[in-house]
């Protein structure tokens, strides 16, 4: 057992400050455990989101010592506990209270994306056949747990909130890539990705990829191919039609 001092952000939209809490840390504990200790023993009303405590739901995103991560998957032993540890809410979204932010931006963005539009069943029994290698591309994107850490670090909206109405962000590019590369999907979202998605704002800094807890290659596998599709469509319509029809690039 070791003692550690946490500096936890307490406050709401009107402002706030970091408050020190000193707690005991048990073997194997993660940051979320220690935050729960503070809650149970010193600050009962400390607001924090969590659900699974197993890295599966993407609820517990925060900035620990300035680093955006999942609190439930960050062991205390990976931090220098001789120094105070700062725990702050993710920055890009409006603060509700303490460690909880208003992430409705992401839900609104998702609701704008043109829905999955499947082709007719391609097997005699009225169901679909797909090969493993064809689903694997999409499966990578579908690992996304919607922690919104990628949205949080993307400078396009982190440093320029005024871009929010014109930019859906990396999480939604992952979703769009998944739909566009879905073996059964028939819709064309290129215009949407360009115009509403605002993908041109992305200058491929890869900050989003670096923080993704699911190790999704957001830039290389989702954003760049989407950018290429747009370039192809607007500058090389024949190649685009070919790739849409055959599923090959």
């Amino acid at each position: 057992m070791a003692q550690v001092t946490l500096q936890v952000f307490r406050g709401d939209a009107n402002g706030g400050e970091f408050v020190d809490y000193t707690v005991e840390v048990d073997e194997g504990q993660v940051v979320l455990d220690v935050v729960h200790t503070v809650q149970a023993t010193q600050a009962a009303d400390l607001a924090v989101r969590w659900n699974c405590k197993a890295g599966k739901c993407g609820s517990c995103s925060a900035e620990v010592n300035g680093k955006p991560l999942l609190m439930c998957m960050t062991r205390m032993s990976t931090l220098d506990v001789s120094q105070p540890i700062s725990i702050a809410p993710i920055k890009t979204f409006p603060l509700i209270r303490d460690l909880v932010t208003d992430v409705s931006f992401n839900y609104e963005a998702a609701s704008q994306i043109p829905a999955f539009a499947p082709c007719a069943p391609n097997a005699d029994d009225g169901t679909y056949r797909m090969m493993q290698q064809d689903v694997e591309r999409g499966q990578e994107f579908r690992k996304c747990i919607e922690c919104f850490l990628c949205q949080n670090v993307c400078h396009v909206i982190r440093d320029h909130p005024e871009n929010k109405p014109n930019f859906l962000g990396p999480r939604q590019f992952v979703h769009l890539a998944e739909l566009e590369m879905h073996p059964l999907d028939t819709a064309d979202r290129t215009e949407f990705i360009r115009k509403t998605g605002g993908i041109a704002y992305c200058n491929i800094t890869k900050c989003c990829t670096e923080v993704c807890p699911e190790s999704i290659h957001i830039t290389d596998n989702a954003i760049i191919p989407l950018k290429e599709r747009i370039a192809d469509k607007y500058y090389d319509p024949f190649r685009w039609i070919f790739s849409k029809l055959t599923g090959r690039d």
Partner: protein
Amino acid sequence: MAEIQTHEYDVIVVGAGGAGLRAAIEASAMGARTALVCKSLLGKAHTVMAEGGIAAAMGNVYSEDNWQVHFRDTMRGGKMLGNWRMAQIHAQESPDRVHELEAWGALFDRTQDGRIQQRAFGGHRYDRLAHVGDRTGLEMIRTLQQHAVHKGIDVYMECTISRLLKDGDRISGAVGYWRESGEYVAFKAKAVVLATGGTGKAFRINSNSWEYTGDGHSLAYWAGAELIDMEFIQFHPTGMVWPPSVRGILVTEGVRGEGGILTNSDGKRFMFEYISDYFRAETAETEEEADRWYGDKLNNRRTPDLLPRDEVARAIVAEVKAGRGSPHGGVFLDIASRHPADYIKRALPSMYHQFKQLADIDITAAPMEVGPTMHYTMGGVRVEPDTGAATVPGIFAAGECAGGMHGANRLGGNSLSDLVVFGRRAGIGAAEYALGLGSQPVLAEADVNAVTSELEACFGNDGGENPYAIQSDLQDAMHMLVGIIRTGAEIEEALGKIAELKARAMKAGATGGKAYNPSWHLAMDLRSLLTVAEASARAAGERTESRGGHTRNDYQETDPEWGKWNLSLSQAADGSMKLEKTPLAEMPAELATLFEEAK
């Protein structure tokens, strides 16, 4: 009190896991004005954590599989105490529901010929679980969430329902609060579908999220509906045991489905010693046969590592008690010696990740340490099998908070299929009921105000009992006294403690303001948590036998006479909990023969 925000719908669905989402999609498709209300953000419900897969007799791997075999496995897994009609509907309809998920965008793992891949799981005769690696629940919730979002269903997130209200004997709506602001909200609704999940947070070691406080169970109970089978609690045999902070986090049965074996400190595959007579005929007797079974399920019998969960959990407890456990009080689960590292990483990516990150263990090189963890609540709201209707007009229930489908023990994979099969049916049931009702029942303002004053009262208790301490004491009591192996005396003691905790909970104080205040939320959740804890303890005390997820040390045998009865709980006029024995529905002859034919 200020005017309370009020909304009007035909159907409100409480809970946005697999069951709630599927119910809302269906109710809305039928033309009912539908709202979906959930305590967490959309997409974060418990369903997101499901790992191993969804059971459906599609016969993609073994064409011998069909609904009859699935039905039989489910009934036997539940020690014949399940509702036969629910088990039948479930087995018949789950393949369609899985194909439907695919048509809505889900990308399941594939067989060589491009069909949906299926994996082996405990208690299932054939490879039956459609899956996506070990993140099937995420695939399912995201598919349903994205489908629902485009259907124009109104979603109320981080909004907790605290009470259902009635107009006469039928439902008129619900009252709750926004977690973000602490403001109250009322819903006028003709029908309510409860899809709130389970009760695991009443136990110390569990695999469940904070939301599992038995709210749907309690909402139904307080409104006069019946609960059944509350004594049956599933302790999953394989939760993490070390380090202490992760104790209880689930290790999917998929590890054993993929070939992982349980061993004790002598390196012995101990499950061969624990094959009960009930399953002897269908279980491998030698390690050789068990290992052959993974590749050829037609000519070999199932490995005892994949006996139903109640059997395996009890065996692990016995091994640990006999001093043959692992260093931290579990047993070993070994996949490392059974497959090459890259295969393990591909088939079980999140298990690999989970152990690496949380326990510093590389499961491709070393065995895991595992032990039982409270995982699933078999008991729930008593429902009409075909429609999901509870015993109070206007209440419907589906998913983990509904009872009957799984009997005394649930088979792995049968929950995800249960969610979509009965979620859909409850959606239809609720929409038909609501649309047939004509006028909107009256939501009385006085009733609404009574609920909000009760919720408000926690603030008057400032400086009162710490709600976290009460929950912690409840978890210890349930774990020690109504846990995996129980006795009558222990259960009595638990009931005494629950009564004390109830008194303390009434004095639980919320500190701070109303906006996003977890101490206030927990103080209110304690009421449902204590209600379901009492229900489980009472039913467990009454059932003087051992069966499935209910093991009595003082009544170790399974008693055929008890096999004819469910235990049903409802609220008596004086507010006390009333317990009744109700006869099990009798299976029609053509289904009963399925059990005679089986070897």
